């Protein structure tokens, strides 16, 4: 727990010290306005709430890929990984703490898009199922953090992690049902989509903003947690092997 808190504290201070960490919070309300404009122009006011939720998920994903995913790579280039590995702290716990801080940052986008929609178009988030909405946002942040650990571990092995983070964003937005429900994607893609926690999160978020009761809420929340936890465990195992490999090859510090 101490390592988790150390990681959380470190990242919180880094966010304060580095304004570029806040870029996703600049883009989220802009995306919200673009999506709102599209659905209003198309005469689909019933999709306004969906248009507001998509930027929140995109922000979490963006933070997971761009910032959390490149965390270990960045530390490695700055010769911070070796001294970190030599401490008694668990790398996975430190990493999870740092990512948790980033997820908190990502969740701020929810309030931003709410304000942007209200101010620009007078559209508010319809809190039809506020408890479900809150829980869904929390488990989504948790699952995104779990996936980020796996990304961070795998990206260390690549020569240029930034290429992957840039090219992975949009396929994941699509497969994760961020813009439109995964159910309307071609049938052969849907099994892949079901394995991505974001598709469950996105469906739940949309459902929590609409009046009809939410079917199987707890099971669906559990699925998000399960997929996120599985990703974290896989990520931790990958991390262990990657670190072992870097120690064996003498590559913990990048030249």
């Amino acid at each position: 727990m101490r390592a988790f808190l150390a990681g959380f504290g470190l990242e919180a201070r880094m966010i304060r010290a580095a304004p570029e960490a806040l870029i996703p919070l600049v883009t989220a309300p802009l995306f919200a306005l673009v999506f709102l404009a599209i659905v209003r122009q198309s005469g689909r006011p019933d999709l306004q709430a969906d248009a507001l939720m998509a930027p929140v998920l995109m922000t979490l994903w963006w933070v997971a890929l761009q910032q959390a995913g490149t965390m270990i790579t960045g530390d490695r280039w700055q010769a911070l990984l070796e001294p970190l590995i030599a401490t008694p702290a668990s790398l996975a716990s430190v990493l999870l703490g740092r990512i948790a801080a980033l997820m908190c940052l990502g969740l701020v986008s929810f309030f931003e898009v709410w304000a942007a929609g209200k101010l620009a178009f007078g559209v508010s988030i319809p809190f039809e199922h506020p408890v479900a909405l809150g829980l869904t946002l929390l488990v989504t942040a948790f699952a995104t953090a779990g996936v980020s650990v796996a990304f961070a571990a795998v990206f260390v092995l690549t020569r240029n992690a930034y290429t992957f983070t840039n090219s992975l964003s949009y396929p994941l937005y699509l497969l994760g049902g961020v813009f439109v429900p995964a159910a309307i994607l071609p049938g052969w893609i849907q099994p892949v989509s079901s394995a991505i926690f974001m598709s469950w999160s996105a469906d739940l978020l949309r459902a929590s903003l609409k009046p009809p009761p939410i079917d199987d809420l707890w099971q669906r929340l559990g699925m998000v947690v399960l997929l996120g936890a599985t990703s974290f465990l896989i990520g931790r195992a990958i991390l262990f092997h990657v670190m072992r490999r870097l120690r064996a090859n003498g590559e913990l510090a990048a030249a």
Partner: protein
Amino acid sequence: MGTPAVEVEEISRVFEPRKKPEVVALDDVSLTIPPGEIHGLLGPNGAGKTTLVKILSTVLLPTSGRARVLGMDVVDETKAVRPQIGIVFGGERGLYWRLTGRQNLEYWGALYKLSARETKERTQRLIERVGLAERADERVETYSRGMKQRLHLARGLVGDATVLFLDEPTTGMDPLAAREFRTLIAELRDEGRTILLATHDMVEAETVCDRVTLIDRGKVVATESPRTLGRVISRFQRIDAEGVDGTVLDEIRALAGVSSVSEVEGSVRIEVDEEGATRVVLGRLVDAGATSVRTSLPSLEEVYVQLIGDRGLEV
């Protein structure tokens, strides 16, 4: 004898870079450091000093051989080793530049599982100890190279380690700060810590180390106290004399075992490179009525050059 603080048994490390020939960084190195010793690791660039420090600090795996810290294997018992060690790698990297010195130390302290209160207290003590109190709340990116080096040192100490591995810790420090650093190292020994100091700085090694290991091309050349190492090559003794006229110097120059005779500001330095030559030279100087005669052993730097060779910039 109790458990050594550091025990290295026939450690080898071979690097196999892609599309390049393999590099033997360490070749069958053995070394034992008793608790409480300051041990210097001296060698030219590429000698294998950093590789050995990295293996001992658990961040690099050896190709073969075993190494233990306080009796614990650095490969199989890393979880037990890590709370006991502190590392200081040289260079400007290895710190969060956008955070303050204090924030950096608090982060690293927390990684050693200190409570929040302990972390704050220890951070403050270390900041004062390394002379960064006035700049502790400024971003590291505004620090000079020497100040970053002091922060590196404080980071190495934040876990209250029993065994410290210092790799070129005074790089970038001004002479005054380097002298203070040596005082600090002596204090750390008095507190019962064991220190392995990898350095190029002969004066530093000679001043603070109880023993030094000379390492070259991955092999240990010698391990002794700095004074004993001087005796190892005592045949290279030198004699400084005053009040000797030129004729006598010509005679001495012709003696067997005299390698050089040079005059500097009214004094003369005679260097010998054979056992027994010193006695003959001294006798001749006394007979010639020299007003002052002094013999001395070579400095550690001269030992280093004699044993490892003057390789210039070659690595």
